């Protein structure tokens, strides 16, 4: 055994954290403000982003209320434009992207058997930058919130057409949350590359960690571009430059290219970790290994690569030569293939399993059906002759809500129900969880399925009112009712969380009989995560450990895991 350790670098112990001094334990709020523990920072991330999710949700409900009937005068156009700008910005920059960082923060070190992130203080910096970005942005409520949409197309967002500080607040939000994500991304990359448990090669990395790795790389590639783009917008607005001004040799289309060069990878930044959560949840509740581990891991990488090459499909209604249109249509089409591979592998994971009906599984199944619709409508809008009808209409709104709300958010909810016992040590209420899912599923589809038709019938996005023609009033009313049902479903989960934190049944270390290392630790895990870091022998280390225990204690009939794990991986 000793000789083995000397020859194989994989068996060398990971760097251990040594205490240089004993610090007094800080109490309460000071501890939360100064913590560098990845689990506490993870909780800060999750709570903060979920609050922003609720704020963004209220903004959405206000918009749906306004659109509940034709020619409504409930909100004035200025308020409405501010609402959809803040809704989009909040959901993207302050909810979906950072909540994935929240899950990543809490679970990446635990899943790879590390005791913390590589750079704990940078980790804390990431969180505080995110929070300041959110605060700066929402402070604009007290002067003039931005009204130019989350895409901030110039010239509408320049000084002439958007006076006041709203757009500037948005620019600083992008700078601050961008820095936060960049610092976080480097941290994830270094952690995953260097701090894996002994035996955890790339072929045994949990699929969620794979997606966080790709997420980090995409952030590093895409964020500098938007940071540069908004800086140019800032100097255009205040320091007399003309990067986007056609009368002085600039171009408004430059903004769109830069914005979407970031904006489309951003879509995958949001949805890849969601894929990761689904890939973790399904095998646990199907009680069967993930089908096609390598195909799922590789498709994440392919999606990320192709995702960098499709940005101009957001610009199909700007003047472009035919060959450019064809290129971006082809590349957008190609993404359908790796995405399809993932979906088929998930479905195959369920097949012949022993499926345990728990809330995380139900949310994951809901995710598959809704994301499939989002993927198919994605192909439809990628075909430019059809897109000329669909672009900038409610069809597009419906499409991206199917990928981001029906997709990413349902995965986030699966993740919340799945990991809540690990984070708090207590189980959530299953009955309330099922009700929450049922209302969210019905409400979501009621709201957004009909929006495809609304768009096809000729209603553009971002209008604060519409004329009473055809069935628009009926369709919009259905959508508004659906939105409130969806809101009620989300509220049930909030109630469930608040109740279960204090009063849920105690979970124990591994309530789901899961596959990955975070369940090896207690719930919640201690400061150092693990007293002993086990050697990883397969993609499912916890299954090996359970079998080993059963074998050694004589409670199970199965053979020891050694033979199987030697052939694989």
């Amino acid at each position, binding site marked *: 055994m000793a000789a083995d350790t000397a020859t194989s670098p994989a068996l060398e112990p990971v760097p251990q954290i040594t205490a240089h001094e004993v610090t007094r334990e800080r109490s309460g709020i000071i501890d939360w403000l100064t913590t560098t523990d990845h689990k506490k920072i993870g909780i800060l991330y999750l709570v903060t982003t979920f609050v922003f999710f609720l704020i963004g949700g209220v903004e959405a409900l206000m918009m749906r209320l306004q659109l509940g009937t034709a020619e409504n*005068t409930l909100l004035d*156009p200025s308020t409405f*434009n501010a609402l959809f700008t803040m809704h989009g910005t909040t959901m993207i920059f302050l909810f979906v992207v950072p909540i994935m960082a929240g899950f990543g923060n809490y679970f990446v070190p635990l899943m790879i058997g590390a005791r913390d992130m590589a750079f704990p203080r940078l980790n804390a910096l990431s969180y505080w930058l995110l929070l300041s970005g959110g605060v700066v942005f929402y402070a604009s409520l007290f002067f003039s919130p931005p*009204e*130019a949409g989350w895409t901030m*197309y110039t*010239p509408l967002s320049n000084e*002439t*057409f958007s006076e006041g500080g709203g757009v500037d607040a948005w620019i600083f939000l992008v700078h601050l949350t961008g820095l936060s994500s960049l610092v976080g991304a480097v941290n994830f990359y270094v952690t995953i590359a260097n701090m894996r448990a002994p035996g955890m090669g790339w072929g045994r990395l949990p699929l969620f960690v794979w997606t966080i790795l790709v997420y980090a790389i995409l952030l590093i590639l895409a964020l500098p571009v938007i940071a540069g783009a908004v800086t140019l917008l800032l100097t255009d607005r205040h320091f007399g430059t003309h990067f986007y001004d*056609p009368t002085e040799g600039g*171009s*408004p289309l430059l903004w769109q290219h830069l914005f979407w060069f970031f904006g489309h990878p951003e879509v995958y930044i949001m949805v890849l970790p969601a894929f990761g959560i689904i890939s973790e949840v399904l095998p646990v509740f199907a*009680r*069967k*290994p*993930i089908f*096609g*581990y390598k*195909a799922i891991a590789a498709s994440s990488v392919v999606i990320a690569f192709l995702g960098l090459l499709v940005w101009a499909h957001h610009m199909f*209604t*700007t*003047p472009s030569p*035919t060959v450019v*249109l*064809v290129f971006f*249509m082809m590349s957008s*089409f*190609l993404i359908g*293939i790796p995405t*399809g*591979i993932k*979906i*088929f*592998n998930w*479905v195959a994971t369920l*097949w*012949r*399993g*022993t*499926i*345990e009906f728990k809330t995380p599984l139900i949310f994951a*199944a809901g995710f598959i*059906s809704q994301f499939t619709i989002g993927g198919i409508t994605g192909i*439809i809008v990628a*075909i430019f*002759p*059809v897109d*000329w*009808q669909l*672009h*900038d209409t409610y069809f597009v709104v419906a499409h991206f809500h199917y990928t981001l709300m029906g997709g990413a958010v349902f995965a986030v909810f699966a993740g919340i129900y799945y990991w809540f016992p690990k984070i708090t040590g207590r189980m959530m209420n299953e009955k309330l969880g099922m009700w929450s899912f049922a209302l969210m599923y019905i409400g979501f589809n009621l709201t957004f399925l009909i929006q495809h038709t609304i768009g*096809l*019938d*000729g209603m*553009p996005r*971002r209008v*604060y*009112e519409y004329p009473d023609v*055809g069935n628009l009033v009926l369709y919009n009313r259905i959508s508004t009712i659906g939105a409130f049902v969806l809101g009620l479903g989300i509220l049930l989960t909030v109630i469930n969380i608040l109740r279960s934190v204090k009063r849920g049944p105690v979970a124990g270390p591994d309530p789901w009989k899961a596959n990955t290392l975070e369940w090896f630790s207690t719930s919640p895990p201690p400061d150092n995560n693990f007293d002993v870091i086990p050697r990883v022998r397969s993609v499912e280390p916890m*299954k090996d450990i359970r079998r080993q225990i059963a074998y050694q204690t004589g409670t199970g009939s199965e053979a020891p895991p050694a033979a199987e794990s030697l052939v694989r991986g």
Partner: protein
Amino acid sequence: MVVAGVIASAIGIVLALAIEWFPTVAATQTKKISTLYDVLLIASVPIFVLVVTVVVAAVIRFRMRPGQEDQDGPPIHGNTRLEVIWTVLPALLILGLCTYSYIVLEDIEKAPAAAQELRIGVHGEQFAWTFTYPEEVTGGEELTTTELVLPVDRSVRFSITTADVIHDFWVPDFAMKLDAVPGLTTHYRVTPTRLGTYPVVCAELCGLGHSVMRSRVRVVEQAEFERWLAEQSTPAVEEGAGPDEQVAAGKQIFASEGCGGCHTLADAGSGGQIGPNLDDVLKGVDEAKIREDIVDPDAQIAAGYGAGIMPSTYGQTLSDSELDALVAYLKEATK
């Protein structure tokens, strides 16, 4: 499961084809795009049905039954043949759809013989559309209007420009839209095939009045198109009309120009909130001032409203007699 899947796919496809997805097919281009859309649905429905049927069947058939709590499913880790199948088949499908889309694109953009094509300018400005008929179309002076009138069965090439921010010229019934980008002139062509009146919509967020930046397009017979062109050069109000006729004509102009989209005016029954409430701001104002407010809206702006929001082109799109009538009406309505 296979039977259920096939039946569900068939029902799905029939439904998808039975529903009229596009508003009306009012141009040759719309027809091609609408057919392409139907083909996409025929390809998509079975894929969606496949995924959902298998998920539902798996969840029912392989649910955990009492006594199975400690049982694991079989240790299946993958299947290379399946992986290859579900990579190659979608790839072929996608290649086919891509080729078809390219053919449709070529078809749509194909130019007709140059002499037969109408060339019309489309100009976007916060928050109104104006349309310019060049001399070669009118046979006389260049004509600028706020209503788009097109002859049926004749190809039209639009040249789209903007005065300020990005707008997007969209006629849902033609299934075509294109951005108006500052500094550029963009083009697309359609051949209207169906008589009728259809909405013109701005599809790109352009500011406070984005949702009221609507106009209409009327597709008429060639003979009527020529008659309409001729009418445009005669005054809207007869020379020497009485004040009542002027006010009545002005009321019509107020409605047809879409003033009510932005302005509240009790007499016209409009409730727009983008611009000032005319019942308040025009009370007791004299004719010369009202006229200036229309022709040069930024000269003096009501408190609480911004410059550059109301189009400054009404001096060009309205004839002198139309302006007189509109001013007379506004004076009368806000007395």
